[in-house]
């Protein structure tokens, strides 16, 4: 009886993560409110606080937020098997869609009209990324922390003018960030303000 419940729960977990992943465009943090609605409000599998924890950890880890949140949610609801089922559910929709697209890509891309549309869209994509950079950059400037601003400028210069690998820049900034975090953490504990 209990075993059957477990299977049913896994099946439902798969279906829900699949559907959420299949209908979330652009990805990213949009996934959290959708998951909250389904798993907290509709299914009552977890409470609000647990969902907030999942969101915090999913954001703090490398990789796609959708995938991270699914793993945590699945694990919380049905253990390791749940985690695996949830990953499968959230990865399958893009896997299927992009497989189908890649089948037709070569034929479509050589079409004159499609290639003109894609050329116009490239200008649009460049603008979308530029918009993201401006928004994130402004948020960073607003922190008014000289360290962050210098790191951003150095990172950009290193990547554009010296062809430094992205991983190297991220690791270097991660180390500086860790040092800074530890330093500030200690400062707070000692009653100081840094």
């Amino acid at each position: 009886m209990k075993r059957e419940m477990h299977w049913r729960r896994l099946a439902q977990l798969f279906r829900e993560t699949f559907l959420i992943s299949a209908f979330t465009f652009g990805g990213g943090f949009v996934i959290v409110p959708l998951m909250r609605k389904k798993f907290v409000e509709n299914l009552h599998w977890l409470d609000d606080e647990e969902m907030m924890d999942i969101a915090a950890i999913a954001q703090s880890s490398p990789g796609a937020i959708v995938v991270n949140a699914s793993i945590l949610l699945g694990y919380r609801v049905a253990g390791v098997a749940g985690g695996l089922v949830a990953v499968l559910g959230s990865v399958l929709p893009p896997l299927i869609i992009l497989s189908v697209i890649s089948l037709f890509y070569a034929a479509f891309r050589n079409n004159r009209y499609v290639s003109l549309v894609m050329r116009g869209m490239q200008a649009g994509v460049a603008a979308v990324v530029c918009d993201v950079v401006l928004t994130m950059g402004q948020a960073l400037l607003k922190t008014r922390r000289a360290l962050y601003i210098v790191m951003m400028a150095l990172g950009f210069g290193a990547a554009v003018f010296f062809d430094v690998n992205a991983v190297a820049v991220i690791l270097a900034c991660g180390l500086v960030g860790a040092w800074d975090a530890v330093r500030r953490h200690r400062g707070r504990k000692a009653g100081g303000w840094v």
Partner: protein
Amino acid sequence: MIQLLELFWSFFQVGLFSVGGGYASMPLIQHQVVELHPWLTMGEFADIITISQMTPGPIAINSATFVGIRIAGLPGALAATAGCVLPSCIIVLTLAWVYSRWRNLNIMQGILQGLRPAVVAMIASAGLSLAALALFGSQTLGTVRWADFDWAAAVLFAAALAALRKWKQDPIAVMSGTGAVGLAVYLLLGQ
């Protein structure tokens, strides 16, 4: 087999180092599939980013599938996607365990805050490559020449940026718009 391992390892690195969500994976993917391995041209990479915006799913998974299929068929797609997801599985579960014991992610979030500048800088550099492609049709920043400047694309770019920033339009709508207007303009220009 070697190709499958290469795909797995490349996207493992993408999964491991893309912190900060969303666009953060873009520069890493570009490095792996355009610069390090001859898997995609810059133009094809830009197409993937475009397609990723129009379809559900994270950019990293979309790219892993697309590149994997092109290099080694369905096994390639599975190897690349598995590589992309594996670091998440390990790290997320470890962090969840740490968190359940101490309920404190302060240091981790401090590190992430420190990574923000790097993430913005990396996305900016990838954005520059995309702009060079859109406005000059050049595959790398080094080959940008003023003679190749595409006025129509520059106007589309400026209009799209204004629509996004001033009128807060939806990115999918904006890109569909530049696609449709681009088609009309380039046909009128006789291209």
